[in-house]
């Protein structure tokens, strides 16, 4: 078992240094939010408790480095099942905090099992992909993959912890890396854009956009698409739009307009098909009809299926509703705090917005406000840069892994950290709805610091094993 002795030279020290910087900087900002005291070792305050958690996280990191790298692949499924059991247990006996029943109490310490579930799912997914000749190309393999991701996700959804559940969607990156069609990723991205734009823009503009994109796809697919047909479609559409504009007619004309234009495009394409005798590449037609359908159904879903609570959050995020008192209060105050930091910031302990309780959850989900306010653009730039370096470094390290288990696990860790990082900062600056997920390594809170440490160091352990020449499977 000579490979279990950790060779210090084989550890990726760059990642560890960034980790240490983020954790320390996080602690400084947590300390700053607890403005009433200057006592560093005050264990009744968040920064004092955070010190204990940092110690626990460091011990965890050391233990991870000592344990054999094989432990994780061997016990991946056991850990996964344990995490699932824990989630069910939480659902039955958990403590409710902020409407989510996602906490359990362990001898006075509160813990969020969903944090362990992320780690467990990452391990289980890595093991599945690492199994002999596994490829994401059969119904069976897809079923297994989706089952592994969706099981913990739905249990967390049942706990009403939306934020943590959404984190599991970040595994899409892993699936993409492991062979899922790039179209799927594009499709999802496009669906989000379509959803948001159909709430923000007038229907006609969106349809116009869809027709335009369809047309471009069609042009690329069929290079000989007759120009006359294309032109007539555009003219027809423009005439219809002008008619609508000048007569100020109501929306019932929209469908007619779209239908006529679509018919012209379809006709011109059918004409081309007859000419070219190729019926295979129908992507653009599919695209057009799916998109149009989506746009029309979004309004229905939005008005009839989503609850007012969620509608408010979405509308506030999209800026449809300027509501600085109610739902938008957190985001508004958060933007004010960050914005008031300016270029250089107000200086350590000098922030007023975060201290005077203007910003809620200032040490956890909204810790980035303190950073933005007290350290300014310089501080937020530095923090984001550190995350950027860490994430890219991890992609590079993952790619370097010789065995699939380690590589998939690496991508899982990267995806989770990336999702948390991007969504958390985006929500503090009003770019994402407030779903309440912590900023990795920085936010106060034991479960999240511990689980991010675990994720990162298990991967670093795997990587360290990978680097040694005498590494054997």
């Amino acid at each position, binding site marked *: 078992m000579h490979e279990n002795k950790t060779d210090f030279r084989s550890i990726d020290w760059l990642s560890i240094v960034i980790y240490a910087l983020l954790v320390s900087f996080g602690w400084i900002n947590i300390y700053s939010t607890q403005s009433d005291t200057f006592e560093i070792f005050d264990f009744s305050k968040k920064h004092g408790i955070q010190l204990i958690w940092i110690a626990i996280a460091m011990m965890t990191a050391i233990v991870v480095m000592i344990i054999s790298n094989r432990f994780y692949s061997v016990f991946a499924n056991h850990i996964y099942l344990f995490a699932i059991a824990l989630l069910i247990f939480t659902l039955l006996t958990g403590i409710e905090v902020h409407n989510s029943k996602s906490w359990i109490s362990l001898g006075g310490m509160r813990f969020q099992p969903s944090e362990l579930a992320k780690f467990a799912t990452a391990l289980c997914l890595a093991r599945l992909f690492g199994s002999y000749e596994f490829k994401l190309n059969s119904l069976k393999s897809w079923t297994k993959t989706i089952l592994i991701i969706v099981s913990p996700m739905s249990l967390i959804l049942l706990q009403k912890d939306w934020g943590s559940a959404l984190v599991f969607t970040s595994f899409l990156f892993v699936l993409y890396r492991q062979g899922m069609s790039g179209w799927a990723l594009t499709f999802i991205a496009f669906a989000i854009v379509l959803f948001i734009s159909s709430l923000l823009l007038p229907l006609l503009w969106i349809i116009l956009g869809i027709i335009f994109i369809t047309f471009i796809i069609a042009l690329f697919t069929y290079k000989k698409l007759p120009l006359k047909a294309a032109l007539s479609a555009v003219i027809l559409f423009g005439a219809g739009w002008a008619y609508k504009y000048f007569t100020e007619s109501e929306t019932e004309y929209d469908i007619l307009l779209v239908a006529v234009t679509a018919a012209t495009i379809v006709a011109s394409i059918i004409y081309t098909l007859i000419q070219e005798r190729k019926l295979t590449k129908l992507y653009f037609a599919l695209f057009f009809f799916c998109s149009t359908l989506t746009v029309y159904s979004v309004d229905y879903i939005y008005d009839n299926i989503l609850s007012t609570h969620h509608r408010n959050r979405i509308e506030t995020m999209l800026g449809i509703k300027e509501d600085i008192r109610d739902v938008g209060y957190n985001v508004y105050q958060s933007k*004010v705090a*960050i*914005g008031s930091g300016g270029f250089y910031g107000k200086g350590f302990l000098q*922030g007023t917005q975060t201290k*005077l309780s203007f910003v809620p959850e200032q040490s956890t989900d909204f810790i980035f406000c303190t950073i*933005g306010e007290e350290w300014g653009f310089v501080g937020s730039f530095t923090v984001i840069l550190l995350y950027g370096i860490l994430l890219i470094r991890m992609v590079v390290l993952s790619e370097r892994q010789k065995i699939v288990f380690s590589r998939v696990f690496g991508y899982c860790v990267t995806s989770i950290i*990336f999702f948390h990082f991007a969504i958390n900062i985006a929500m503090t600056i009003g*770019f994402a709805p407030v779903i309440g997920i912590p900023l990795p390594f920085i936010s106060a809170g034991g479960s999240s610091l511990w689980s991010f440490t675990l994720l990162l160091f298990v991967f670093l352990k795997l990587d360290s094993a990978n680097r040694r020449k005498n590494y054997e499977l």
Partner: protein
Amino acid sequence: MVARRNIIIIIIIVVTIVILLMRLFFIQVLDESYKITAANNAFRYDVEYPARGIIYDRNKNILVENTTTYDIMITPRELKDIDTAELCTIFRLSPEEVKNIFKDLGRNRSYRAFTFLKQVAPERYAMFKERADRFPGFYAVVRTMRVYPRKVGGNVLGYIKEADTATINRNQYYKSGDYIGCTGIEESYEEVLRGKKGLSIYLRDSRNRIVEPYEGGRLDTSAVSGKNITSSIDADLQEYVQLLMQNKVGSVVAIEPSTGEILALVSSPTFDPALLSGLNRGQNFNALDSDPTHPLYNRAIMSRQPPGSTFKLVNGLIALQEETLTTTTHYHCGGRYPYGKGVGCHGHLSPVNFTNSIMVSCNSYYCHVFRNILENKKYSSTGLALDAWREKVQRFGFARKLGIDLPGEKEGIIASKQMYDKRYGENRWNPLTVISLAIGQGEIVTTILQLANMCATIANKGYYYIPHIVKAVGDGEKIAPEYYEKQYCGIDEKYFDHTIQGMYMAVNGIGTAWRVRLPDIELCGKTGTAENPHGKNHSVFVCFAPKNNPKIAVAALIENSGAGASFAAPVSALTVEKYLKGKISRTDLEQFMLGLDLVTNNPLYARK
């Protein structure tokens, strides 16, 4: 293909980071608006409350002034462990009360202050101030409270209370916790009395300590004190009339005819205005509000009653002006007016001329007079004649708001063609159907203010000034210009002499009000007895004095008492004597009125 995917993932990461950084650069460096808002958050606005104006009576006696009290506030965030026992001693609270307040506070740790105790007396505040350092998180806000040295005129003065949500939503000026005038002068002159709040803006640091005035105090505004008000009320007279009206339900209004200034306005039962100021306001208000005699109701301007025979004065004047009556016209009275359903009268000399008809208050005479008004050939129908009459009555100030500077004035009712057409059908009624209008009964309902104003109009021989309760604002500033304009009632001056002579004779001849004759005062009066279907008649009296160059006109109504001459007349006469002479010679009347109790043991006013 798969090998390239790590690059695509890196690109996604980089693009995300670039978007986040661009947004951060925008809100942190480019967009100035967030800095301004942040400054707003870090501001502390200190409101300076102006002193509310003082209200004087016409002789510079103080009716309402201010005293300073303190509201003790708590900032929950700054609260530390304190000695609750000491807190109890300072504010005279029981430990349970303090415990309850802190229980309400719960886990609230915000910077938003809330009120711990309201209206703490200055001596208690002094004790607190000495030891303020032992109570971190506690501070005091200065508040002014209304005090009433004369304890009179509750209905006239009104009171102040905390502005309710509806007011705050309607009017930008008021914020939660601000006081606003309610009823009386406090309400109608609210904007004059309240002054203007001042505002100081300070920058505060992260520990909520004030660092410096914002922009060196350039934007600060200082409070402007409310203006003082001089009421036309004579506090001594008001006090005396209130005393006379004790244990009676009704109202008295005294007007100076030459100016329209109200000398006394008494609604009885009334209340001590001090009850609605201070800590027990809510409790006292509820008690007054549920009192079956309705002390909060300002009867003088709100209660509408038939004027009874006092209205004969108006009918007589209108008939003279319309020339359907001359001052020499005599009518015989056989104890009743025999036409139609008939109208009863009392025993008096007969026949009577116009002057004597007022002196003896002959019902038959006025039935003839009123029938002639309605059968005037000038008008093509009785209905039109009635409306013409109504119009003339309105010019005396009836069936409309006079425009007194008090809130809540009521209009009253005067019969009209439309009203009877609706009730009886068009052309289905005649002068005899509505003959009770002749003697101020039926579809005539007036306020006492209107009757007092009518009396002042007669005293002035044809005009009045809109009655008002405020003489001057601030340092002798004039009030609204309409209060200085003569309002003519459309009756020629020459017709008033006989009316006034009749009123003079009613008191000083063998008339209805002979019992209230005053030595050395030429009192002119007219009794009225308003029929009341619910109990005893309402006693009504209008009078003015002296006969030449009148100084005071009074109208009084005492509900459920009896004849006008017996109850309302003594009160009115005493009011006149008190005002003109400053002392009472008719102590017999005074003793009678003071001893009269129509409220206690009266089932009408029994608490249900």
